């Protein structure tokens, strides 16, 4: 984030779960793509979709992580295709995020930085920083952590 501000995407997973990623980290929005169930996975991530000949995991932060049920379909209104890189120089990887609505762009400046509140429990372990926006503490999430490590 520079002094004059940087553009970011604001992502609403549910009414009380909002996070941000960098402008370059979202590629495309899909409306209700075909999802495929993967057994013995977590409540938050048990679907994949096909995008440009790739199989991508679909992460839904609005899902109850304590639920054992696989019946609950992802509640997202739209699906965002995200891009990330595990190590500089390695090929780009992709994943999908279920969102409650269309992501929107915001401008984030250094003076908006704030501490991560306890209430962001499900997103806090994925956050690399946090900023204050419209009286909310918005975690900036690390997509490598979102897609590459086990989720509960």
């Amino acid at each position, binding site marked *: 984030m520079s002094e004059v501000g940087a553009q970011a995407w604001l992502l609403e997973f549910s009414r009380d779960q909002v996070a941000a990623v960098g402008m370059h980290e979202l590629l495309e929005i899909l409306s209700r793509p075909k999802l*495929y*169930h*993967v*057994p*013995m*996975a*977590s409540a*938050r*991530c*048990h679907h*994949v979709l*096909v995008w440009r*000949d*790739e*199989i*991508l*995991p679909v*992460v839904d932060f609005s899902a109850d992580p304590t639920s054992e049920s*696989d019946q609950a379909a992802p509640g997202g209104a739209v699906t965002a295709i995200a891009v990330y890189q595990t190590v500089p120089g390695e090929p780009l990887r992709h*994943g999908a995020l279920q969102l409650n609505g269309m992501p929107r762009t915001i401008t984030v400046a250094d003076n908006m930085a704030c501490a991560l509140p306890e209430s962001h429990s499900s997103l806090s372990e994925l956050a690399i920083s946090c900023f204050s926006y419209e009286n909310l503490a918005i975690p900036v999430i690390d997509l490598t952590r*979102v*897609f*590459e*490590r*086990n*989720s*509960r």
Partner: protein
Amino acid sequence: MSAASAIVGSVVSGWIACTFDDITLLIPMEDAGARVDADELVPSAQRLELGMLRWQDELWPAYRLDRELAPVEWQTSPTTVVLPVYANGQARGIVCDQIRSLDHPVAVSLYPIPGCLRERPSPVIALGLYATLRVGLVVRSDSLIRHLDATLGDSAR
């Protein structure tokens, strides 16, 4: 050894796509036998066994699985088809809605399972793209049989 063979750990000459409850298992042809119709099964008194299939002079149970790959009670119908899977001298039957042969090793493109989908130990070893961008779950018969036995507990054969 092809990329597919490297992932599944042995030579793969083709695949069987076995579909039930809107999921598809992709099983190497080497692990499976020819489909069996429900009326060919020997009746079983066990609650979760839909019948027994005959293989190498022994009878082996056939199960219908749910979307979490756990055996469930199921009412067979005239259209019920069973896929026999074999490993280490054992057999099991998987009750399917549809069985399809993909007669070439590259009919399925294999992808590793992303980290966020690896929650628990699972017989699924990879994800597969087949038949115009459909997604299936790649399993070997030995790990599937072990999974069924573990799910059913010590009372399973």
